């Protein structure tokens, strides 16, 4: 066990994966000599060399297209997109190719690729260094989507992603890259996909969150406890596959749900979660399902704190939900 920040845990995970398997390599912009603009790839270039830590030209199309080609050939590339906001030049490769290769070839050509990207707001990054568009990827059949909220999960989910034979979009909440620290198991630590993490037990309402929103959700639960409301907090960890069992079990117990994410509300992942509850936990629900989310505006600069959910807005929604039924 070592005490690490989240970004250090990612870095350890990358080192571990590359040591384990010579077929694993890293490519992206500024990932090599520079060690990544967030230092996530620091030290890799020195240890593994230019053959396995590849500084690419400024082309996300090229990064993902090349990663796919490498994977088809048999390697296990980890592609870094510098900010999730800059993944769109590669969106065609991701949704048309990466997600569909195994299927369209009848299983002949799987794509063993991890795409890592820092994402989310709260770093004064404005429109283009703040967005949370995990729903685009969750909606795309053929992609898995993992989002850690603790250093241990950052390493554990990353190693699971690298060993997954299918494409994984691995989103790193950059706002808590350095803001959270925690004990991280050394060596080959893996956290399975599709298992939500119970952050806090409670009986009156379940707060669903992931990534940088787990912290504010836990804060809200703390504040609610002081008011006599017992809130359960569940960290989804992976959106695809989704741990419906844990989700439904929790709502069967609490009867109330508040869903939290930074992404815009309309068609955000919270909508899916709400729909799952409306289908499968209908008879357990005692109150309307609330969503505490980013607004349906582009991500603002000066007003980013107004845009983002926080402990107080989450607690407010939970109170309303508990009062409702």
């Amino acid at each position, binding site marked *: 066990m070592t005490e690490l920040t989240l970004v250090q845990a990612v870095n350890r995970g990358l080192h571990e994966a590359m040591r384990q398997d010579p077929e694993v*390599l890293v490519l992206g912009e500024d990932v090599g000599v520079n060690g990544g603009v967030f230092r996530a790839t620091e030290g890799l270039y020195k240890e593994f060399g230019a*053959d*396995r830590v*590849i500084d*690419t*030209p400024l*082309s996300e*199309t*090229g990064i*993902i*297209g*090349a*990663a*796919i*080609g*490498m*994977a*088809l*050939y*048999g*390697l296990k*590339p980890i592609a870094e997109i510098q900010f999730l906001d800059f993944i769109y*030049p590669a969106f*065609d*490769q991701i949704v*048309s*190719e990466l997600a*569909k*290769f*195994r*299927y*369209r*070839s*009848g*299983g*002949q*050509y*799987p794509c063993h690729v991890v795409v890592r990207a820092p994402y989310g707001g709260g770093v004064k990054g404005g429109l283009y260094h703040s967005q949370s568009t995990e729903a685009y990827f969750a909606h795309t*059949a*053929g992609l*898995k989507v993992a989002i850690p909220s603790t250093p241990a999960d950052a390493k554990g989910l990353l190693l699971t992603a690298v060993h997954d*034979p*299918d494409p994984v979009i691995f989103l790193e909440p950059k706002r808590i890259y350095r803001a959270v620290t925690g004990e991280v198991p050394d060596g080959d630590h893996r956290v399975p996909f*599709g298992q939500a993490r119970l952050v806090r037990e409670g009986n009156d309402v379940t707060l669903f969150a992931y990534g940088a929103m787990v912290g504010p959700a836990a804060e809200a639960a703390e504040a609610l406890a002081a008011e006599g409301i017992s809130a359960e907090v569940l960290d989804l960890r992976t959106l*695809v*596959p*989704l741990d*419906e*069992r844990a989700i439904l079990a929790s709502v069967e117990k609490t009867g109330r749900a508040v869903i939290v994410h930074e992404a815009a509300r309309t068609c955000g992942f919270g909508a899916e979660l709400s729909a799952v509850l409306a289908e499968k936990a209908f008879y357990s629900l005692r109150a309307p399902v609330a969503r505490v989310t980013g607004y349906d505006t582009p991500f603002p600069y000066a007003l980013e704190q107004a845009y983002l959910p926080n402990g107080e807005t989450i607690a407010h929604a939970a109170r309303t939900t508990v009062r409702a039924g």
Partner: protein
Amino acid sequence: MTGAIADPSGPTVESTEVADLTPERLRDAYRWMVLSRTVDERCLSLQRQGRIGFYAPLAGQEAAQVGTALALKPEDWIFPAYREVAVALVRGTPLGRVFDQMIGNAFDTSKGRQMPNHFAWRDQHYVSASSPIGTQITQAVGAAMAAQRRRDGIVTVTFFGDGATSSNDFHAGLNLAGVFQTPTVFVCQNNQWAISLPREQQTRSATLAEKGSAYGIPGVVVDGNNLRAVYTAVSEARRRAVSGGGPTLIEALVYRFGPHSTSDDPRRYRTDQQVAAAKERDPIALLRAELIESGDWDAARDAQLLERLRAEVATAFEASEAAPPVDPASLFDDVFLTPTPRLEEERREFAEREPMGGPRP
């Protein structure tokens, strides 16, 4: 013209011809070209009869495709577009498998997942084609980067059209190939049309080959109707690539004789005269004339060959047509190696549809 290399750093130079095109190999090439044309004609008529759903013909591009495919080694990897039926055949795809794919039956290597023309056969390193234009180009470069790292002495070859030179992936792919000096041969079949858009409106560069110089990649223009020229240029490019000399962009000048696809009516944008003029340089006729001229072929053998190939094609198609359809439950396979719980649930939901009389495909 037999392969003029437009080197970015200097003037164009004439390539020399490679020596290994024996009469035997030329006849072999000719057979592949005639077989491709036979498949092509058959598929167009099958589509009209409603027996296959779609087809994109390659007539006019046989020398470019067969010439390239024959210049490669079995261990090389192919990243095709959707028009490379001849390449699939030369690589060894049995006729029956081609038709299985056209139909999407239970024997299709891609399990009926794709439209006609979108082959994939892993054993032959023939990568699954997709419809979005250009995407295979960066992938071919990535595979070449992988091969470099494994020190495999292979090349990756990617096919695309004149239209695809405008795609994002052309730009990204050639740039990466230049930077990393990958063993990649880019084969642009310039058939003069991107559906209705003529080559001159696609881009203002004088040739497509010279686009290579934007990436420090040598560009070669070849007469794509001349099998020798194509074979020579690709052989050279392959040799350079495997000896560490980096990638080459080959522009094969051809003409699309038929419609873009069975959904297209080319008379809306070009005249029959234009097509007739282009057909005067039919790659099959040119090679046939050469073979006959040199005494390596004759009209009787030609007629015989055609008859035999037509019969083989007909027989193969009928077998494919008689094959069982894909299993409906396979709908949920291959999304991931191991299905997610959601997919398992959907598979169960689907299985329950049957008793209620919902339509089964």
